[in-house]
């Protein structure tokens, strides 16, 4: 069974970069160009992982993350947050990145490292109900 990854990133070139690398690594991907689009796509598929840019127009990455966590199917889905800003001292997100299923990656990032991180997060994620072993 192939894994579906939702990529929410407003920068066209970075989105294409992630998309390219993850497809190359064998994942099925779908792109959302802003937070609102990402939220509207949360329910359409049983996502194996979400890649969310923090700074997006309309709805930011943290909000998308909160929405996903409120949904039954995505409460424990691995989420990789991408950010160009340091999170040091940002108390509003401290609670959100504590859990193992939410990780943060700083920009600029190495695409190979991103793909490795995605792989290890999907591997370590708790199996969803109804999933068959791949």
């Amino acid at each position: 069974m192939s894994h579906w990854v939702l990529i929410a990133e407003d920068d066209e070139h970075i989105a294409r970069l992630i998309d390219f690398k993850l497809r190359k690594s064998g994942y099925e991907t779908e792109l959302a160009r802003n937070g609102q689009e990402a939220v509207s796509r949360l329910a359409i598929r049983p996502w194996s992982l979400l890649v969310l840019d923090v700074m997006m127009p309309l709805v930011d990455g943290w909000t998308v993350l909160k929405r996903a966590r409120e949904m039954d199917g995505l409460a424990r889905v691995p989420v990789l947050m991408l950010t160009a800003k340091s999170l040091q001292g940002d108390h509003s997100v401290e609670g959100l990145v504590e859990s193992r299923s939410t990780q943060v990656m700083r920009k600029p990032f190495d695409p190979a490292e991103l793909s490795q991180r995605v792989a290890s997060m999907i591997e370590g994620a708790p199996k969803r109900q109804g999933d068959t072993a791949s």
Partner: protein
Amino acid sequence: MRKGYGVCPPPPSCLVKNLTIGRRPVLCDSGQVGGQFNLQYLNNRLSPGNLGIQLVIAGVCFVALSLVRLGLGSVSAVDLRHGAALRAATGVGMILLFGFMLYRLYVSIIKPIERLSLTIQDYRNGNFGARARISGRNEIGYLEASFNDLAETTSNLVNELRALDLLKSEFLSTVSHELRTPLTSIGGYARLLRDGDAGPLNETQAEFLGIIETNVARLSGLINDLLDVEKLESGRMQVDYRPQELRSVLKECVETLGVLASRKGLKLDLVFSSDCANGLGPVLGDRDQLLRIFVNLISNAIKYTPSGWVRVEASQSPLGVTVRVRDTGVGLSAEERERLFRKFYRAKSGLTSGEGGSGLGLVITRGLVEAHQGGIEVESEPGQGTVFTVTFPRAVDRADQNFRQLERPRSKLEGRPSSDNGFRILIADPETDKRILIKRALLQKGFLVDDVPTGRQLIRRMEQEDYNLVLVELGLSDISGLEALQAIRRNPRWAGLPVFMMLDEAANPPPRAILASCGADQLVGKYRGIGGVVDAVISHFQQLETNRSEAGP
């Protein structure tokens, strides 16, 4: 309208306008500067000469009565009975008049001045909202209105600067984000190509892509450095203070950088003096940032050393930990030494060697060292190599010791400032005014405060009593503040006692390394008003309370 004053000052709203920079709106509402604070209003409505006139009238009455009395004296021989009655009456009248004058003097001059000076003190202590109440239509009233005006202007300026500072930080943060986004694309696609994700490459193409990647890393490092400098300067750098054993920190640095050194054919050694057998330190600080300090210094030494060796030497005394990074590199001229810690400065020899660098490394290093209450110094001659010496105060289990020393009631530093919080502080300052000012401010915050004017009295008082904190002015008159500090630190009884050194305005601060090696805990400047001293004391005790509540239930 009276023209009692040579220059009619512009109303506060004008002053405020003059201060705004460009067309940005004034952040502080100048509308609240109306009515009673307005000088123009005073000039129009009040009579500034009132007080003088009152006094002149009172004086004339006094003189007239005296004259009457003198006149009566001359006729007293004629009619003794009437004379006696009149004399008694004028005597009583004079006493009453005198008493009345004294009362007027108190009410119209002394009382308002007293009130005004209290208000000014309040303002100096950092309450920028403090304003004087206008007491009357006279010179004092004018003085009070003038103070209000100045206070308003200054607080507007402070607000303005704070807003600007905030804008600067926001700007840097936004710019860094805007720079990192294209950098992510450039570096990311270069990496994809070099990894062969888009097809096979020839050797030259791979080499060129490697060059792109190196420069992306450099640019990215520069952005991080810029943000760090900003954080250090604004005091927003977060340091997680915990006792750290420095030996493992230094070992880790040397291991990491060994590769870099050997690639250049340099020998990189780590030497501990014999007193480090049981560990180095501990030093109170953040492990990551301590690592960064030494990685910066060692990689800098490697960068500027074409051949020979780089040696890291560590030693300690009961009070301080000293680490020297010594190299046989190109060295520095006197001019270069002086500019070394300035932003964006890079030694010439480095510029021509083709080595990269933002010129921010040492600024960050020094900032981080100072954030750990330490000091950094450089010794070097051109062609003779360079030695960087970093000194940190050695951490003593202060929190614990302090709370064992004095059994004190449970207290909160916030909330009830008027009630006493049980902490005892001793101030040593030769200047009575400032000493009393600091004492009063600390008393207000609920501390128990004693004060002495000289260094010898300081030591004597400390021998007699137990204190939780000592504030020592560096410029004591009998023995210097540093000598007093050394005397304190020589006595094991006070090993864990926090000592804050105060520095008066316009004085040259001694190198932090010396302060640190003498065992000073903090250097607080008095030149920004005594508010800084009070804040330092409060945050020290708040830290203690936090540590204590974290340590145990």
